Each structure stands twice: as structure tokens, then as C-alpha cells.
């Protein structure tokens, strides 16, 4: 059943919000800590059923909002008043959010029900879900493999059938990477489309809250609710860019020939199996909708990882200075895991006065370079398609190097550096392991991106 079909059932009184929530709680009870032991949730909302009953009353009175009765999992770095926002860290193990993030306010206004707080990589520092202080989340599609990260629990919850929709955060691929590995849809909105107020930051110049769903329309529905200007986050923008116009003319007819941008020599960066799956899908899309294909330079990928991490290290070091054990939680350096500590120590080191202009500033320049390259690309093509992740997820508890871990995000990072929108959606499988295809459009062209994604989904 698609998200909109479910919504229609609930709004039509054929399925109550309470029944919907209870059926998910039953499945969670069966397979999250027991059974398959997915470990997607760190905390369930004790008031979820009560809230569902309230929504049912609204439905009867025809006052229910756009998300009426849908169950939504929330990554544990987004504040939901009264629930734990631990960031999957011992540092904030007992911290309960004292206010709602702006995105949560919007979801509640539209009668979505927060079903629980999802597991994640500690403070969003990871690409596999393994750095959580509260044990790794399993990939529901291949239990022996990692689900990807850092929004591991949010994505696994959708993939395992524990909720309808989920919120994650994406700083360098943290929604798209696990979405690819777990066979669901994950959206990283343009920087400034969604308020970050109430998001515990990893790197504030790159973070965006995004949506996860089993289908494109579900991810779009949730994004439509949470997007928009927020006075509490000054980088949220009011965009008058109606990208729908870029696909259709004034009469609403499909515009002439659209051009797909593909990265030249992408097969050198990823496995053959993934490359073939993506290539086949692009050819099918181009044939079905009579689209042109144009190659673009791989420059945006070549420097992505090396640009991203100095920025993240420094901004994360700066952002974590508030975790000094005084106002809440424990002192972060005393309680965190190795990857978090690596970023704090590395960020502190390279932001020293003696290294002025050497690391962070150079990375800022490279960020600007990648942004300009993508702007040039989007003058030649309407959208870009590439794999979401260059390789299949590794086995749980297997050792991979830090550099290998960082390279998981080489295809997703450019969208964050350039502030554009991007999403991952299922493309097929290699063996039993899902593989995601990534779509990128210019900043604030989400409507266009969803149009193309729906076409891809139908193939």
C-alpha cells in the first residue's frame, strides 16, 4: 500500500489512526528488540496511542491535517519535547528535549504522530550506523549487513515496516546513504528549505533535515509539511522558484527535450554491479521519456571527501563546545566514542591559530569550487543522475578503515557542499542487497526532482 493510499484509508474512516499506530507498535515489539533485532528505536513515544485517539476525533469532525494518523519516526538528534534526544551518545543519554524542533511543530499541526526516537550514528558521525553508543542498527533487507548512516534507525524503521515515514538529517549523505542500502526513498532538501531549529548540529553550514518514506509521494508529502521559512532559523529562505515550470510550458504541456547529466567515467569510482544497474536505469528512463544524455566532468566527485571532512571536523568541534557537562549531560570528550572524539580532536587541532588559512579556509575554497562547477553543469543539463553510494554495505562488525568509511559518501557529499537538493530511490538489487539511484537538481528545484523521481519509480 502506498503512503497516499494509507492516508486515504485513515481519512475515510476505514483504518483508524489508533489501529495504524497499534499495528506498528506490534511489529516493533515483534522485531525491533526481539525477533530480527533491528534496533531501529532508542525510545518509543509513550503517548503515541493517546495522540492517535485525538487524531481520530479530528478525523470524525473533518478537521484532520495532511498527515492525519501517519506514524513518523524521528532521528534522535531532532528535539521532540519530552522525548530523549540523545544523539545515540552516552553524552546525552538522559537528555530529554525541552522544546519541539520547528519541523516537529509542523508535523503535529498536520496531525502526524511521532512514534519514537530512532537510533543513529553517534552525533551523526558515521556512515554505517555502527558508531551508536546503543548498539548498531541492522539492515532490514539484509540482516547481516550495516544499514548505512548516519540516519540508520530512521531509515531502518521505514524499511522494516515500523512506521509510515521518518525524519533524518543529511550533512554529507546521512539520509541518502542508508536509504540506498535499505531500499527506501530518502530526500536531502536544498540548504535553507527546511528549518534546522531544534536539530542538534553536526556541521551547521551543511546540515539539513530531510524525509524518508517507502515511496516518492510519501517523502514528498512529509517534505511539503516541514519546509518553509522559519524565523528561528535565519538561513531558511522563501523561494519563488517554481521549478514545475521547468518541466512544463505555460499551457501545462511537457517541455521539449530534457537532458540528463551523467558523470563521465563513473564506473571508475564504484563497483561494476552498481554502475551497470544505474546505467541500465538511465538508458530506460531516457528511452521511455525521450530524454537526452550528456556527460559532465567528474570534478565534483574528485575533491568531495577531502573538502567535506575538514569543514565537518572544525564545525563539529565548534558545535560541541556546549557539551561541557554543565547545562546537560556529560562532558562530551569523557563520554563519546572514537569517531566523535577523532572529529573533535582533529577539528580542534586544525582550527588552531598556527594553521590559519591552511585547512578550513582551503576547504571553504574547494566548497566554492564544487558549487560553481555544479552551477556550470546545471546550465548544460536539467538534472544529474548517479549512484547514491559507490559500494554495497559491509558486514556488521567487519573492520574497514576510516578512509574507506568516509568514501561511502563521495557521491552524496557534492549536493551538501553546493546546497542543492538530491534524493535516493530504489534502483534494483545486487543479490539481495538494495542499490539506490541518486537524483540531483539545482537549489530549490524539489518539485522538478520529485517529478523525475516519480517517473523513475514507475519504470
Amino acid at each position, binding site marked *: 500500500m502506498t503512503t497516499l493510499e494509507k492516508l486515504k484509508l485513515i481519512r475515510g474512516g476505514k483504518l483508524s489512526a489508533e489501529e495504524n499506530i497499534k499495528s506498528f507498535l506490534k511489529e516493533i515489539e515483534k522485531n525491533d528488540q526481539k525477533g530480527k533485532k533491528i534496533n531501529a528505536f532508542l525510545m518509543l513515544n509513550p503517548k503515541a496511542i493517546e495522540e492517535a485517539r485525538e487524531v481520530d476525533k479530528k478525523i470524525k469532525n473533518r478537521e484532520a491535517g495532511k498527515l492525519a494518523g501517519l506514524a513518523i519516526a524521528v532521528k534522535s538528534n531532532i528535539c521532540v*519535547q*519530552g522525548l530523549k534526544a540523545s544523539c545515540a551518545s552516552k553524552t546525552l543519554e*538522559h*537528555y*530529554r*528535549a*525541552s*522544546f519541539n524542533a520547528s519541523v516537529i511543530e509542523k508535523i503535529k499541526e498536520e496531525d502526524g504522530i511521532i512514534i519514537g526516537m530512532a537510533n543513529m550514528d553517534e552525533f551523526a558521525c558515521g556512515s554505517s550506523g555502527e558508531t551508536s553508543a546503543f548498539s548498531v542498527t541492522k539492515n532490514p533487507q539484509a540482516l547481516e549487513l550495516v544499514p548505512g548512516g548516519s540516519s540508520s534507525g530512521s531509515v531502518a524503521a521505514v524499511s522494516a515496516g515500523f512506521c509510515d515515514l521518518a525524519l533524518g538529517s543529511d550533512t554529507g549523505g546521512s539520509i541518502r546513504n542508508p536509504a540506498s542500502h535499505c531500499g527506501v526513498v530518502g530526500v536531502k532538501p536544498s540548504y535553507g528549505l527546511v528549518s534546522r531549529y531544534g536539530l542538534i548540529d553536526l556541521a551547521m*553550514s551543511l546540515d539539513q533535515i530531510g524525509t524518508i518514506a517507502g515511496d516518492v509521494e510519501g517523502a514528498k508529502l512529509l517534505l511539503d509539511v516541514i519546509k518553509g521559512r522559519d*524565523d*528561528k*532559523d*535565519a*538561513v531558511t529562505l522563501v523561494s519563488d522558484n517554481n521549478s514545475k515550470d521547468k518541466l512544463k510550458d505555460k499551457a501545462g504541456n511537457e517541455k521539449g527535450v530534457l537532458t540528463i547529466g551523467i558523470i563521465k567515467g563513473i564506473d571508475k569510482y564504484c563497483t561494476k554491479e552498481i554502475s551497470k544497474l544505474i546505467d541500465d536505469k538511465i538508458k530506460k528512463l531516457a528511452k521511455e521519456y525521450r530524454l537526452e544524455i550528456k556527460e559532465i566532468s567528474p570534478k565534483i566527485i574528485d*575533491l568531495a*571527501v*577531502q*573538502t567535506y*571532512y*575538514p569543514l565537518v*571536523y572544525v564545525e563539529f568541534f565548534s558545535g560541541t563546545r556546549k557539551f561541557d*557537562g*554543565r*547545562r*546537560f*549531560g556529560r562532558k562530551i570528550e*569523557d*563520554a*563519546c*566514542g*572514537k569517531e566523535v*572524539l*577523532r*572529529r573533535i*580532536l*582533529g577539528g580542534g*587541532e*586544525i582550527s588552531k591559530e598556527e594553521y590559519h588559512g*591552511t*585547512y578550513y*579556509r*582551503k*576547504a*571553504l*575554497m*574547494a566548497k*566554492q*569550487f564544487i558549487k*560553481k562547477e555544479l552551477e556550470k553543469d546545471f546550465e548544460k543539463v536539467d538534472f544529474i543522475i548517479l549512484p547514491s553510494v559507490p559500494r554495497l554495505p559491509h558486514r556488521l562488525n567487519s573492520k574497514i578503515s*576510516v*578512509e574507506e568509511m568516509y568514501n561511502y559518501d563521495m557521491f552524496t557529499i557534492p549536493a551538501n557542499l553546493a546546497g542543492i537538493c538530491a534524493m535516493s530511490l530504489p534502483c534494483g538489487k545486487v543479490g539481495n542487497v538494495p542499490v539506490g539511484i541518486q537524483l540531483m537538481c539545482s537549489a530549490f528545484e524539489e518539485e522538478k526532482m520529485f517529478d523525475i523521481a516519480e517517473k523513475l519509480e514507475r519504470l
Partner: protein
Amino acid sequence: MVENIEETRKEAKKIMDSFVKALGKIDEKLDIPAGELRDELVGKERENETFRKIFFENAPEVRDDSIVAEKGKWK
């Protein structure tokens, strides 16, 4: 807690050095536009009683209507 802090620091620095080496060819004449400043909105939540209640519950040490930020060891 991580045991070998100095080793972790060195490892992080080594990774950063290799990354910044790869960025060596970036044209340093690129203009970087100044970022937009963010309003901090200090005190906006003060009126919210639930906020205040949970905020104080989260604090390790509270005295009257204040959070104790320093333990005063210098006295």
C-alpha cells in the same frame, strides 16, 4: 570513553593532512562570499513552562532558579 587520546589526535591530523594535500590545487583566488548571520533568539523559550521544567531536570546541578555552571573550586 576512548583510551588513547593522543593517538586519536595524531590519526585525525594525519587524515586532515592527506585531505588538505589533495586540495592543494584549488585556486586560492576564488571569492568566498560572507555567510549569513543567524539570529540566536536568546530567551524566546523563557515563557514556556514545560521548557523550563525539563531544562532544569536536564541540568546536573540546580540551585533555586539557576543552573550551577561552576563549582567554585577556586575559592
